[in-house]
């Protein structure tokens, strides 16, 4: 078939829905994200069933109208995150083909892609490693290879293959999946839908149930889910995680025939998180119970026990909670980078800690060149970059670097480290480069910067007489005071900068200043201005004993 009409599409939907329905339990077992409540399969199944019913009711030759009915049914019956996303995918899909009486391979691929675009638009922070990612990868593959597909079945083969590959990759994108050892549940659900579509086009029957993944994976998921539901170890009702295998014994089976349903029913009375998998020879059991002995004794009625493992979960619980914390760290994505310039390793660390991807060593006497900036950006391998020079003498070089680079780049003309800090804090990873440059510039303009440095010769600037080796206080680039004592100059500078509106004073002290000296300054400010909060950092910068900001 090089094109399909509405009636054929309705059959595809029916098959997709049926296949998902068959495997809903398995999809439930994978559900650990966004909330590990094990209902993804149930929800998706309900949504898809509602879509299929509506399609059946309005199935006709005209595919545009049939797809519209499908989309409406999905929307009305949408349940759960995955259900809502599924409805969006097909809302876009059906909108794209609403006027067609039948669609070709090309149109089908493009409609799928349009559906993905629609689905992505409906969320502020798309989480990758979910059904969204699987849908996106599959649609991209469809568009990319639509020329190679002989017919629609060929296209669906490409779609299913890529959806499966993408599903396999989900644990690399979403740490919680990797930790539990599962793939994304919503993504798995979508794969079933696509597999159903394909089977319908090929005129094949699908296996009633896929073989369940390994016991270990299921146990992992089960543990994760049960751990999530306890805040304290004391709350654990069934304290022993008990696993064993029963080697079925034909003699014993004579007076005690093995029936998995009965076996499961009997054991379920002893605890929760029960998993039973059996074939003709062995039964694998996993259960959380307070009476592990009873579970083992029950298993012995059917045969001999092997591979027994009993663990006290009250002891393990705290470990798992710790592990959860660790996995919350998101993988680094270098799509968007902030490259900035500073002097002193303390400042570099500070900049990195709030979000700078790379800090180029620079400073008053050794400004980085355009080439240095370009190189630093290329090393990160970002797609979009914001450059913060933190010094007015470097702005030009940064502007040139932005022009030379072949990626999206913009310069936020920060003139000092505090301005750079303020700019980074205003960064929004969701916004465009242009928007970020604008808002970051605004943020950096709202703070006042002060610097303390020493004079290299006798001079008079801005009406202030300066002697060699004296310290100078510079507020917003203008010299305001000069004196032999570092402490006096710094105190005077800060006092002149703070007004009623200000809330935060940040002090970054240099390599020549001891922590005690800096503390002294901080204590003085606290005493004089009780309405401001003070943040003190060891910047380890040369030449400038103090860099300050007031906001």
């Amino acid at each position: 078939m090089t094109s399909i009409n509405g009636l054929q599409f309705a059959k595809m939907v029916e098959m997709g829905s049926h296949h998902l329905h068959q495997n809903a339990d398995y999809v439930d077992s994978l559900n650990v994200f966004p909330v590990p409540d094990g209902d993804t399969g149930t929800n998706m199944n309900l949504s898809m069933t509602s879509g299929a019913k509506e399609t059946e009711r309005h199935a006709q030759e005209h595919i545009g109208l049939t797809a519209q009915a499908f989309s409406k049914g999905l929307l009305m019956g949408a349940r759960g995150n995955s259900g809502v996303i599924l409805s969006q995918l097909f809302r876009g899909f059906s909108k794209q083909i609403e006027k067609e009486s039948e669609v070709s391979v090309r149109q089908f691929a493009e409609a799928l892609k349009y559906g993905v675009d629609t689905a992505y638009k409906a969320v502020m922070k798309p989480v990758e490693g979910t059904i969204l990612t699987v849908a996106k990868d599959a649609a991209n593959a469809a568009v990319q290879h639509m020329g190679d597909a002989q017919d629609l079945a060929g296209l669906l083969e490409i779609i299913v293959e890529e959806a499966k590959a993408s599903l396999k990759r989900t644990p690399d994108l979403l740490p919680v999946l990797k930790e539990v050892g599962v793939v994304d549940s919503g993504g798995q659900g979508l794969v079933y839908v696509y597999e159903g579509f394909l089977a319908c086009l090929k005129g094949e029957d699908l296996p009633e149930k896929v073989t369940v993944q390994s016991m270990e994976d299921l146990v992992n998921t089960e543990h994760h889910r049960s751990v999530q539901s306890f805040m304290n170890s004391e709350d654990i009702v069934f304290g022993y995680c008990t696993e064993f295998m029963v080697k079925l014994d034909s003699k014993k089976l004579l007076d005690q025939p093995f029936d998995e349903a009965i076996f499961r029913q009997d054991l379920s009375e002893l605890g929760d998180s029960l998993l039973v998998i059996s074939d003709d020879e062995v039964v694998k059991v996993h259960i959380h119970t307070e009476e592990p002995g009873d579970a083992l004794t029950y298993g012995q009625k059917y045969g001999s026990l092997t591979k027994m493992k009993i663990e006290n979960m009250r002891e393990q619980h705290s470990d798992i909670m710790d592990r959860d914390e660790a996995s919350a760290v998101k993988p680094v994505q270098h799509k968007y980078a902030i490259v900035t310039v500073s002097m002193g390793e303390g400042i570099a660390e500070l900049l990195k800690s709030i979000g700078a991807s790379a800090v180029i060593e620079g400073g008053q006497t050794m400004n980085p060149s355009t080439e240095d900036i370009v190189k630093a950006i290329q090393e990160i391998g970002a797609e979009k970059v914001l450059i913060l020079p933190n010094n007015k003498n470097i702005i030009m070089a940064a502007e040139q670097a932005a022009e030379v680079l072949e990626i999206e780049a913009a310069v936020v003309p920060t003139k000092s480290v505090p301005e750079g800090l303020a700019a980074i804090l205003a960064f929004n990873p969701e916004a465009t480069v242009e928007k970020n440059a604008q808002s970051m510039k605004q943020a950096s303009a709202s703070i006042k910067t002060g610097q303390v440095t020493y004079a290299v010769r006798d001079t008079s600037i801005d009406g202030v007489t300066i002697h060699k080796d004296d310290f100078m206080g510079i507020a917003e680039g203008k010299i305001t005071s000069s004196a032999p004592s570092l402490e006096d100059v710094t105190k005077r500078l800060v006092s002149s900068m703070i007004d009623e509106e200000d809330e935060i004073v940040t002090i970054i002290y240099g390599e020549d200043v001891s922590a005690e000296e800096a503390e002294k300054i901080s204590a003085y400010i606290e005493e004089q201005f009780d309405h401001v909060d003070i943040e003190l950092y060891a910047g380890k910068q040369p030449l400038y004993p103090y860099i300050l900001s007031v906001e």
Partner: protein
Amino acid sequence: MSIELKNEHGTIDITNDVIAQVVGEAAIECYGIVGMASQHQIRDGLTEILRKENFARGVIVRSEGEEFHIDIYVIVSYGTKITEVAYQVQSKVQYIVRKTLGLTVSSVNIFVQGVRVTNV
């Protein structure tokens, strides 16, 4: 304003701003939410999507005796099933607050302040 927890070692105070930030982050990750909105839209500018630092304007934490309640003001995407999206936010917020702050929320109330139509 803050939530105070007592245990044998002393007390833990969690400010409303922290709760608002945690709740807001959880909410905007939910599918169908295009942003957080302000409780007082007229005063703060109409249907403006809040930035991270202003989540507290759209997340109101109220404690009544031992219980506490959260009101969340959101903007949803046009064409989604709004009731379902709101339900997802409620369940995710309950979960996150319990998991990260160890608190049980008595109620999570969603106020849909706007619908964002996006033309693909």
